[in-house]
């Protein structure tokens, strides 16, 4: 096990390598340094893949996809905190696709522990296993991991750069480095002499970086405070550049149609009508679909829709009922995993009351506001690809393969993402744009999907079912035996990304199911995989998105069967297991003035889930207004351990909840004749201004480990709403979406 210690040390090693005109500070591969991707120009010094200082100033690199979660700002703040620069005075860029930008926290999430019970040893092991992220070049934004990944490394990068700059100043002034201080991008000598970092950059490039220690959190200026987002000005003035906004010289505009029977072949097509339509420059046969290149996106969409295509059948049962039947059959197979098996669930304890319930949830689309698109320029020996994406190194490898080029011949330019939610971790939009551009070498081509194409060609959150059995005795839950069945996004994605079959127990399928922090003595939770070819993927909070609904609705049913207040019932189970979870429940109890009683025509529901290291409790209040039910208010408490930016945590908690409530109220992807039946927002809507609840958030910081914030707000929202509707109407919601059962304000 000695090697783990070594790997761990190397994980945090910020080393240097001499480059033209300076030095690069970088994270290392397990055995060799990752190439510095920034290729500094003459007179510039790359102080690490995360910091660049030249005569113009300081640039920080936040190589995590900014899809709204504020990662650019907080990532930059981690560096700036130690580097002593102000976010107003520097540039923050995304940076290119590069192995040095691996996400080691994402791989650590794969360990088979519950998360909240993690020991320091397991925590360290998780950190060490994170090294695998680098060797696989996993520069991925997902799994609510960015801050866990960057928290140590980025502060260390900032501190190393700062001390190296101070050393350069010390040598110039002939004083000891310890006598120097730094603030706002300058080194200050004891006599008050101020030397800007920009003047020290080149000299710093010749210096071996000193060992540094991180500052105590009590000294922080930026972290822990709500900072202005670095992207907010551009996003309030229409000047932020999304993938769909890039305009390289000579750009042409394309649109695409792939088989709506997802994964089916294209037998033939007739484009004669499209060929003569206005603006059309080229019809492109993609083999599995067709595209039109035109001088305007709208004209391209009109033309591609005018192509008559004979599509082959889908490789899965053609309608929702048949798919549901297939998913439910997975319960008959041996479980793929049983990650929790405490006590004995096969014996019903004497005097206990047994409760059972079955639940179902539908397939869901991501429906990012910016439809899928990418822009590619192929010149025969080189490819440039512009797009918002959550995995630049993966997309780089994939499109290099598509174009028959080495990965070094592909430059990925990551823009802002008009929403991600997991959808932009896929590679299809980049691959299609590459194929389209290859039909017109030397000309940049932007391929934009219509909303209908986007909605009907997603990697969907899989439809899922649960069969729950439990027992209560003396007002307490003493047994929970749960089974969940759905397709496995992880296995499918591994196959998509690598071509290899991903086997073994799938933790993601049962996350939010087996690892909920409740002290129930007899507790078994199993996952069953339905083998279907419907494209499925990672949807904000992934397995937690359905398991939160199953687990927390069932717990509510148990509480009511036990004649207990559902909040007190949970609190009693959470307290002995995980104090931060109990703290969140206590917080929403106080915030909402929870009494267990509600006035006539008002209903309240509670739910608590633990996901991505963060427990979140929500209370949702619904009101009956002349027969129409409106979601009136919501209270959220989360414990993230350390709120690096409280305003961003609040925004993510509210946004995550609204994303979940949108799905819970109306979200549903259904199939008929092998095709998705929803086309556009009128068929697949979301909460809007008038039906979004007034929400209050409290951020707690007692959790021992840093928790994620982008996703944990989503899982508890759906059961909290369902439980509120039960409180209001006495009708239990066992399937989603809820507008099928209740007259909700939409």
């Amino acid at each position: 096990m000695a090697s783990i210690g070594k790997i761990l040390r190397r994980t945090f090693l910020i080393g240097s390598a001499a480059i033209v005109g300076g030095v690069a500070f970088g994270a290392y591969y397990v055995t060799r340094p990752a190439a510095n991707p920034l290729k500094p120009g003459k007179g510039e010094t790359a102080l690490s893949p995360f910091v660049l200082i030249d005569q113009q100033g300081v640039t920080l690199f936040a190589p995590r996809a900014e899809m709204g979660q504020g990662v650019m700002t907080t990532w930059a703040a981690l560096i700036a905190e130690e580097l002593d620069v102000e976010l107003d005075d520097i540039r923050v860029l995304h940076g290119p696709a590069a192995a040095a930008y691996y996400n080691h926290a994402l791989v650590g999430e794969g360990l088979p522990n519950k998360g909240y019970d993690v020991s320091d040893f397991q925590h360290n092991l998780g950190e060490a296993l994170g090294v695998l992220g680098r060797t696989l070049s996993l520069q991925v934004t997902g799994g609510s991991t960015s801050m866990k990944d960057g928290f140590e490394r980025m502060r260390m990068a900032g501190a190393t750069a700062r001390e190296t700059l101070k050393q350069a100043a010390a040598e110039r002034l002939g004083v000891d480095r310890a006598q120097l201080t730094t603030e706002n991008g300058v080194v200050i000598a004891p006599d008050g002499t101020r030397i800007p970092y920009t003047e020290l950059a080149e000299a710093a490039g010749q210096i071996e970086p000193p060992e540094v220690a991180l500052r105590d959190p009590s000294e922080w200026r930026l972290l822990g405070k709500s900072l202005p987002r670095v992207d907010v000005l551009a996003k309030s003035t229409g000047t932020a550049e999304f993938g769909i906004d890039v305009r390289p010289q000579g750009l042409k505009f394309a649109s695409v149609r792939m088989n709506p029977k997802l994964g089916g072949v294209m037998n033939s097509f007739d484009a004669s009508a499209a060929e003569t339509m206005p603006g059309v420059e080229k019809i492109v046969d993609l083999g599995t679909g067709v595209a039109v290149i035109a001088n305007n996106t709208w004209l391209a969409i009109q033309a591609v829709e005018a192509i008559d295509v004979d599509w082959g059948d889908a490789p899965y049962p053609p309608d929702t009922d048949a798919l549901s039947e297939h998913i439910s059959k997975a319960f008959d197979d041996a479980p793929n995993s049983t990650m929790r098996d405490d006590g004995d669930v096969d014996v019903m304890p004497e005097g206990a009351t047994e409760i059972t319930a079955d639940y179902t949830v539908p397939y869901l689309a991501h429906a990012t506001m910016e439809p899928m698109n990418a822009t590619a320029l192929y010149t025969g020996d080189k490819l440039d690809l512009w797009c918002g994406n959550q995995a630049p190194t993966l997309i780089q490898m994939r499109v290099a393969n598509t174009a028959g080029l080495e990965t070094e011949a592909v430059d990925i330019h990551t823009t802002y993402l008009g929403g991600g939610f997991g959808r932009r971790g896929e590679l299809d939009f980049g691959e299609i744009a590459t194929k389209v551009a290859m039909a017109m070498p030397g000309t940049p081509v932007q391929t934009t999907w219509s909303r209908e194409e986007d909605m009907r060609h997603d990697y969907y959150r899989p439809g899922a079912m649960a069969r729950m059995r439990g027992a209560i005795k003396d007002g307490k839950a003493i047994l929970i035996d749960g089974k969940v069945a759905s397709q496995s996004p992880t296995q499918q994605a591994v196959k998509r990304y690598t071509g290899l079959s991903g086997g073994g127990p799938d933790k993601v399928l049962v996350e939010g199911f087996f690892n909920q922090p409740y002290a129930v003595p007899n507790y078994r939770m199993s996952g069953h995989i339905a083998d279907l070819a419907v494209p499925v993927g990672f949807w904000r909070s992934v397995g937690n998105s359905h398991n939160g609904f199953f687990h927390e609705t069932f717990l509510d049913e148990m509480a009511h069967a036990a004649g207990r207040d559902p909040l007190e019932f949970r609190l009693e189970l959470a307290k002995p297991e995980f104090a931060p979870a109990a703290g969140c429940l206590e917080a929403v109890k106080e915030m909402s003035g929870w009494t267990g009683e509600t006035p006539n025509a008002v209903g309240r529901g509670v739910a608590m889930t633990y996901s991505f290291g963060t427990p979140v409790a929500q209370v949702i209040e619904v009101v009956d207004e002349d027969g129409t039910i409106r979601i009136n208010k919501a209270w959220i408490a989360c414990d993230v351990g350390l709120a690096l930016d409280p305003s961003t945590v609040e925004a993510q908690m509210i946004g995550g909840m609204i994303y979940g409530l949108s799905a819970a109220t109306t979200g549903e992807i259904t199939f008929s004749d092998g095709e998705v039946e929803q086309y556009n927002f009128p068929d697949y809507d979301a909460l809007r201004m008038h039906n979004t609840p007034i929400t209050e958030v409290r951020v707690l910081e007692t959790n021992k480990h840093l928790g994620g914030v982008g996703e944990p707000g989503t899982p508890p929202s759906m059961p909290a709403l369902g439980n509120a509707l039960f409180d209001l109407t006495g009708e239990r919601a066992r399937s989603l979406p809820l507008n099928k059962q209740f007259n909700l304000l939409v």
Partner: protein
Amino acid sequence: MATALKINGKTHQVDLPDDVPLLWVLRDEVGLTGTKFGCGVAACGACTVHIDGEAVRSCQVALSDVWGDVTTIEGLGTPDAMAAIQKAWVDHQVAQCGYCQSGQIMQAAALLAENSAPSDEDIDDAMQGNLCRCGTYPRIRAAIHDAASKLKEA
């Protein structure tokens, strides 16, 4: 035949078929990409611009039907000279992914132009055609109220 359009105070000659929606004239021809494509069916509001001060979905207005002067988010204010509503958006840190915000801001600006002190109900009515998948609605509401009170003081 070219069509003349006045956009953000400047006249452009546009050589595209009459039925091309204003949205795609702005984005792909004039190069004003602040106005966004979201749905193409007037269901999300991401493409909202003003024609003679009225908020319209530019994906539904054909080039030949543009009846007046067009103002886009770029014409409302710039990073160096923001309109009051944009300033409120920054102050309230509204944007997450930001993709829908041009449309939200244009819709809110039109609301404030005709109602200087909108109630929560007025905001619900005016803004419910504008979708935001990030769920920034509470901050949008706060920013509109704030802009309204600042405009009153001014």
